[in-house]
């Protein structure tokens, strides 16, 4: 299901109603703002704003799911930074002599800096998710085709192949769940999928006497071998699929295609609102950076700028990001 979660689907929201180029630009500005800001408070506010924007665009659930994924990615970043960085001065744990790695002193600064990096990675993932879910790729590619046809072709293929392959993988996995039970091969496959056959129905497995993943007793080597079999089958499918899609594109005349003509679309108030939003966010992020507002230095010791200014910047950024979502009049999916 995760595969499906990242694909565009037209919904009734101001962001979906905005032209693709503006939506994409707005997303890029959010990413740039995340990279420009250093204050954890501002970054946290941006995370909140992006979750709010996701909710406003009707994709809140997927954005929150992406946030959970980001947390999984973020944790190792923090841990590794704490273990590796030697730049901080405030030691909160001494691990002693670690041989070739020197003294194992864990510092507060490394912990905070790791958290800042993790927040930025999370923002990157959230913004990318939001963009994937709300910006019409077909419209975007139509625009890109006017600039660089071959790149757009590659992007077209890639964007189309991802859901096709995700669908293939889903179907293959489903087919393996319907294989006759009890054979060792089936048990291995079910175990590799980590899901008992009929698990969706409570008690069905037990009633039908079907094998249970946990009861399979297969070694991890066997499970890995089966995983490899499944993955190689999916890869084999993907090659066939790529061939079929390429044949279709060939017949649709991609190789002989002419430059697409510009399609004039009048600017809507949503387009204008998101342009204003993107401009405001960019101005606030760049202005704050230049003016030293919400400054935040970690090494060698943590120094924080004015709390009032930082808070004001965070509030302003949140408002700039969310205000276009207030206008929901006359939006249709």
């Amino acid at each position: 299901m995760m595969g499906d979660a990242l694909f565009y689907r037209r919904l009734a929201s101001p962001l979906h109603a905005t032209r693709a180029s503006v939506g994409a630009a707005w997303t890029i500005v959010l990413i740039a703002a995340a990279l420009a800001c250093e204050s954890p408070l501002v970054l946290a506010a941006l995370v909140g704003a992006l979750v709010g924007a996701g909710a406003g665009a009707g994709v809140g659930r997927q954005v929150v799911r992406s946030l959970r994924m980001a947390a999984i990615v973020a944790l190792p970043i923090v841990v590794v930074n704490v273990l590796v960085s030697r730049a901080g001065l405030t030691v909160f744990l001494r691990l002693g002599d670690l041989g070739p790695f020197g003294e194992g002193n864990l510092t507060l600064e490394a912990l905070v800096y790791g958290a800042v990096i993790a927040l930025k990675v999370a923002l990157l993932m959230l913004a990318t998710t939001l963009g994937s879910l709300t910006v019409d790729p077909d419209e975007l590619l139509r625009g890109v085709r006017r600039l660089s046809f071959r790149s757009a072709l590659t992007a077209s293929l890639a964007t189309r192949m991802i859901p096709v392959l995700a669908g293939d993988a889903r179907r293959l996995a489903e087919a393996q769940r319907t294989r006759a039970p009890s054979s060792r091969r089936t048990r291995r496959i079910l175990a590799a999928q980590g899901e008992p056959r009929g698990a969706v129905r409570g008690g069905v497995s037990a009633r039908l006497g079907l094998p249970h993943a946990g009861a399979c007793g297969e070694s991890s080597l066997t499970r890995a071998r089966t995983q490899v079999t499944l993955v190689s089958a999916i890869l084999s499918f993907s090659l066939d699929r790529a061939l079929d899609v390429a044949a279709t594109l060939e017949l649709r005349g991609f190789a002989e295609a002419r430059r697409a003509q510009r399609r004039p679309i009048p600017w809507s108030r949503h387009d204008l609102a998101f342009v204003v939003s993107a401009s405001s966010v960019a101005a606030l992020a760049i202005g704050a950076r230049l003016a030293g507002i919400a400054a935040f230095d970690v090494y060698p010791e943590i120094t924080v700028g004015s709390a009032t200014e930082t808070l004001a910047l965070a509030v302003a950024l949140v408002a700039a990001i969310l205000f276009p979502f207030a206008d929901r009049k006359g939006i249709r999916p």
Partner: protein
Amino acid sequence: MSSLVFDRVTYSYPGAGTPALQDVSLRIEPGELCVLAGLSGHGKSTLLRAACGLAPHFYGGSFAGSVTVEGLDTREHPPSRLGALTGALFQDPETQLVMGSVRAELALVLENRGHSPAMVARGVEEVALALGIDHLLERSTRDLSGGEQQRVALGAALAGRPKVVLLDEPTSQLDPVAGDELIGLLRRLNQEWDTTILLCEHRLERCLAAADRAIAMHEGRVAHDGRPGDFLEWARDEAPALQTPGAKLFALSGLGPAPVGVKQARATLRSRGLLADGSEPPLAAPGVPAGSRAAGDGGAARLRRCLGFRGGGGEGVLLAVRGLWYEIPRGPAVLRGVDLVVEAGESIALMGRNGAGKSTLLRQAAGLLAPTRGKVEAAGRVALLLQNPNDYFLHERVAQEASLRALAAAGLEDLAERNPRDLSGGERQRLALAIVAGDGQRAPAGDKLLPGDVQLAEDRTDESDPPVVLALDEPTRGMDREAKAALAAELRRRAGSGQAVIVATHDPEFAAACADRAVLLADGRVIADGPVAELLAGGWYFSTETARILGGEGEALEPQAGARLLGERATALLLPSEGPAEHLRTVVQGGLE
């Protein structure tokens, strides 16, 4: 100038031992609607690929002779250039959708040709309206059902207004209503726009009446090329597997000429006094009130009957679905209070339009989906064979996919060393069936092992739980008539051995051949449930060709039953001994005996 000319074309795929096309010469004139017939693997799809230049430009291989499309030699012009003249729809529509939304999909070919935005918009709108997919325009191509995908892919092929349209089994995923609509649309395109159409199809009864010409392929060669009526006469003697049910009915009855459609068949029968003048097909079979087995007296009543009479336990009940609802998370309801009881030995055809909920119901029965409300109870394992048999194949050898015993039961033991993907459509379906059904018993010690196959040895010693219910989701997609008959016989055998069989199908002929009960779904509800003869005899769409020819009389669904009915009628008419009916009676009685 001819639309399409094949001149002594011989083509082999890379690494193939035998040519897929051998010395094929054809000339198709502008505005002709040609049907390409033949068993699976005899070169029909390859001929279409050669016609649009994909063979050899895209697939490689060796190519001799020449193919000319509207004057362009396919050896000198790439498929992308030929694409301006030809529109092609191949078997798997999913891989022929390359854009994210339906509107973008239909617009792609027009945009590639550099049309103005207004022309693109008009073209998209018109093709969407023509195919009845205007309501799908804003939908994501990922969210479409199989039938919808096929119509959108066809729309994409037609959007550029090609002069030659090449279609490889375009109705294989469509329900009977959509299939008939599609054939009607192709006829309209052909008549109003003078579009040349080359259509490859297994269900010939759907399209032969609309065709100007039928071409039969056998082992890569053109075995017959002529008018549809002549083709059926030829098929009667040379290729019985290609006969339509109507032609088979006439052949069994000793009648002629072989009818290319229901209208012609009825006219012939009427002229011979075997069909009363002005009789119209009844809406229900004689003696059975219309709707007598409809929902009210269908699933729920049947459930009550079965469980009630058996003290709630129902010894013979293998699967009971009670008040089943399934709603897609944050989406529409696909099943709405379905009740269904399946007893041992029953063979059920699950029918209905695309999106009616057939596949979802089978997935619920097999435990692949959790009900939103309601219950599914099974007396044992419910084996489900999904739509695409290729999804089951993970290995390079057939022997690695299923035990020897299961292969032997499916009649595939001789193919144990072959690659599953090299099997014919019917063989792949049988192998997939062997995989999901298993062998049902422990292999006796001493069975012969394939040398060096440790994996196989492991699997052969396993005991496989035989399924009590075997569910099949559209198992005949892309199958020829011969393979369908073999599958129907296999399902009959399984039902005879006490298993219950449920088949979701769009093919009334297959339903009649393999089932004794039909359940009709619409919008997630069971709207009719009864004996297959009763349900399919009086329908317009959900009906066999034999039933439509005979107007549902005698609940005859298959040619054999129809021929028997005609023989009885001939006897009852008490016509002079030299009359056609007397002759028919003699022929039919002789034939059936």
